[in-house]
């Protein structure tokens, strides 16, 4: 299979209107990333550059390594002794797998949205300010402002402002996912990672989440793993297509969906296989 190596200069998306003058700089750079899980070669020589302040969708059939790749960005494989990682991964020009890089510092830069929302066993308010609290923010007023700000940002404020003290588990799944996003945003990350973040949600909630991603992308680098091609078509600025642990094609959404270079990509996006 022929692999496209992605040049470090990034082509601007053509079809999407990005607030005009803004240009995309590389934010996450993956170099020769290989991941082995229990001896199986899961990710093979991944090279890609994810631009900042845009939505990058990673698509591909089940088991192609999308989630493994996403999780490696956050070093979530750290605790798993079965996983061996070689290669380099730069975030803001800092190799996150280099010795001496502090993992909490890396993770603070990224918010992760899992497939199913996972609220912490505490109140709605405490959920949102959990991150700021563990990173040392103190003072009721300050924390309240953070909670209000982030809950407004995810459109949850009006729904929960009267019951900030009640357990987060009393919210609906869709609300919990937005709460998780608010919680992620509260640590002031630069990057939002979403691992099929809408797949467990009803259509309306998932639309809300999608709109949120679009709304925040001028401030954050959003990287999403998605199963639904239509979702990628709706919101992606850049798309990475993976197959069998390899990065087959990476490009702007327009380029990848309308003029795919690789035969496999062509087949996948036309529904040839899934």
């Amino acid at each position, binding site marked *: 299979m022929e692999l496209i190596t992605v040049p470090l200069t990034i082509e601007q998306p053509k079809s999407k209107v990005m607030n005009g003058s803004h240009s995309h700089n590389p934010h996450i750079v993956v170099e020769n990333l290989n991941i082995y899980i229990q001896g199986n070669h899961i990710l093979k020589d991944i090279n890609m550059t994810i631009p900042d302040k845009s939505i990058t969708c990673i698509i591909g059939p089940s088991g192609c390594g999308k989630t493994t790749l996403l999780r490696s960005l*956050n070093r*979530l494989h750290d605790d798993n*002794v*079965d996983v061996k990682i070689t290669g380099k991964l730069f975030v803001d020009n800092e190799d996150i797998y280099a010795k001496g890089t502090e993992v*909490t*510092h890396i*993770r*603070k830069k*990224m*918010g*992760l949205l*899992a497939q*199913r929302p*996972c*609220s*912490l*066993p*505490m*109140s709605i308010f*405490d959920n949102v300010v*959990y*991150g700021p609290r*563990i*990173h040392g923010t103190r003072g009721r007023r300050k924390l309240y402002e953070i909670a209000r700000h982030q809950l407004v940002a995810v459109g949850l404020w009006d729904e929960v402002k009267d019951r900030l003290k009640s*357990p*987060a*588990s009393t919210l609906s799944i869709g609300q919990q996912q937005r709460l*998780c996003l608010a*919680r*992620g945003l509260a*640590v002031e990350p630069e990057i939002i*990672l979403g691992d099929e973040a809408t797949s467990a949600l009803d259509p309306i909630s998932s639309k809300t989440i999608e709109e949120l991603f679009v709304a925040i992308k001028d401030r954050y680098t959003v990287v999403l793993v998605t199963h639904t091609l239509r979702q990628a078509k709706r919101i992606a600025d850049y798309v990475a297509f993976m197959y069998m642990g390899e990065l087959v094609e990476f490009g702007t959404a327009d380029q990848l969906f309308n003029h795919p270079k690789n035969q496999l990509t062509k087949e996948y996006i036309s529904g040839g296989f899934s």
Partner: protein
Amino acid sequence: MSIKKLEEKIFKGLMIGSSMLIFGVLLYILYIIIKKGLPSLSWEMISQIPSGGFYLGKEGGILNAIMGSLYLIFFSVVISLLISVPVVMYLNFTLRKKSRFSAFARLTFDVLFGIPSIVYGAFGFTVMIFFGLQASLFGGIIAVSLLIIPVMIRSIDEVAVLIPVELIEATKSLGATNYETIKVIVRQLLPGISTAVLLSVGRGIGDGATVLFTAGYTDSIPTSLAQPTATLPLAIFFQLSSPIEEVQNRAYSAALILTVIILILSFSARYFSRRFSKNKI
């Protein structure tokens, strides 16, 4: 009536019948200890230690046994918690989900769970002799801890296996350290921990065999870990084996006191765990 309907009726009857039976036994036990124990229950019983002629039916109380049992169970539960929670953490969150070692460890705890308490008592006694210790509060605490640690581990483990790995990832991806993640997990474990404490208090405080050799018996309230201590189950045992009827009746009031203590602990544990776990998922 069709066979199916008959079957349904029989099994329904069986279920109701066995529930009633259990409930009936509970009521009967309560009836007996209240009927026999209440008349000899007095403020003296719970506020005084035995005086000279106590075992001949004269004045005095069993405060020594009440305090002894409370000391014993309190320290045992604390020690067991300090051991059990880390063990459960290790089994569930450090080891791989289906590692051989964790399966082996769980089997071991099941076996320990099933060992009769007199064996723990005898074992504790042997260890004490080996170290040249006398029957003491300390010895009793160790033996009771041995008895309830498997109970605790298994019941906390039941809840811990249900904790989704996403919870750990959610906290970690916010930049939490291991320590902070553990705090969140413990919070999630609280209902399990309170059930575990309840079960172990019930098993530990009511067990006479473990403390028979290890804690000994005395008429005074222990003032140090090295002193022997009386316990309620043994107070019941000794008084019940007395030929004097009045003393025998006191055994029932001791049983009543023990039951009430367990009930109070149960209800308060339930109440607090509900309050604490109101934010659980």
